[in-house]
């Protein structure tokens, strides 16, 4: 489905057409949910955070100023809600740095690569993203999937633009190292 500009839906909602908000939700729910999931690493919590973020955004829609993009504003709400949730849960997450090579069970690599399918490759990529630190995972998701400029990412995460660039570079390297280990010959073929 092709969506219209966010402001069209926002104006309709503010004029009393509540159903227009459903289109705005459908347009942004996947990325909002992905951002939350990259942070909390739990689907139930991520869904709750996304839902709360959309509710908060709805109630504050009257205060939303058109000078910023709605998506940036929404993802910032999602990001902050996820940070708060993480603080509450005191989640202990593993970072890629904590791993040694022994942690990854490669098994028979030859055999594994032989049976490589797109579905498995997809799983490996998701696994690799999960190995990143939360902020790195979000930055890489917003930058490559949403093609968001680093300035907008800095607005969402509250990090400086330079810091976002550093984390982006670090995340890219980590992803490559991990995937090179996992997809050895596959990755060489792509590159």
């Amino acid at each position, binding site marked *: 489905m092709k969506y219209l500009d966010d402001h069209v839906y926002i104006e309709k909602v503010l004029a009393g057409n509540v159903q227009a908000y459903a289109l705005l*939700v459908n347009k942004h729910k996947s990325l909002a949910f992905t951002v939350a999931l990259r942070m909390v690493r739990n689907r139930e919590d991520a*869904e709750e955070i996304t839902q709360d973020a*959309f*509710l908060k955004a709805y109630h504050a829609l009257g205060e939303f100023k058109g000078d910023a993009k709605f998506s940036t504003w929404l993802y910032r709400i999602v990001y902050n809600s996820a940070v708060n949730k993480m603080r509450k849960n005191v989640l202990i997450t593993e970072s890629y740095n904590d791993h040694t090579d022994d942690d990854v069970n490669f098994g028979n690599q030859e055999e594994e690569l032989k049976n490589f399918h797109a579905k498995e490759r997809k799983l490996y990529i998701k696994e690799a993203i999960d190995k990143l630190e939360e902020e790195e995972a979000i930055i890489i998701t917003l930058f490559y*999937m949403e093609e968001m400029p680093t300035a907008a990412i800095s607005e969402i995460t509250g990090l400086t633009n330079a810091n976002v660039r550093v984390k982006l570079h670090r995340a890219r390297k980590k992803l490559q190292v991990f995937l090179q280990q996992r997809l050895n010959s596959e990755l060489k073929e*792509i590159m």
Partner: protein
Amino acid sequence: MKSNPSNEEDAVKRMLKEAGLESPSRDFTSNLMQMLAPEAKPKFIGQPVFNKNQVYFFTSLFGSFFLYALFSGSTYAIGPKLDLSKVGELTSSIQHLLSSPLLLAVLISGCSLYILDKWMNRAVHQA
């Protein structure tokens, strides 16, 4: 061998696009809309014309003028003089009307019903 950074970038981009975005549950939107349905549309928050200090200033200014005019006892007027005797006649006729017990009962019951209606409406909205 060193790999080309732009190729690396493209490869990461391609891989991430391939992995795709995560999706919430199927009924996510409908659940959310159900939560929003009973609520009114989001409030439009407007900017007041006068700020609090200005309101206090004008209120006290007009209040002091009124009190001065009421208690100064001055008969001097800048504009044409007002004949306030008509006001006195009107007040006495209202007093006469209110002294009728039937009219007083109608007024009191009307006011009570109005207040009760407002109160019930608020209670229904809060529930």
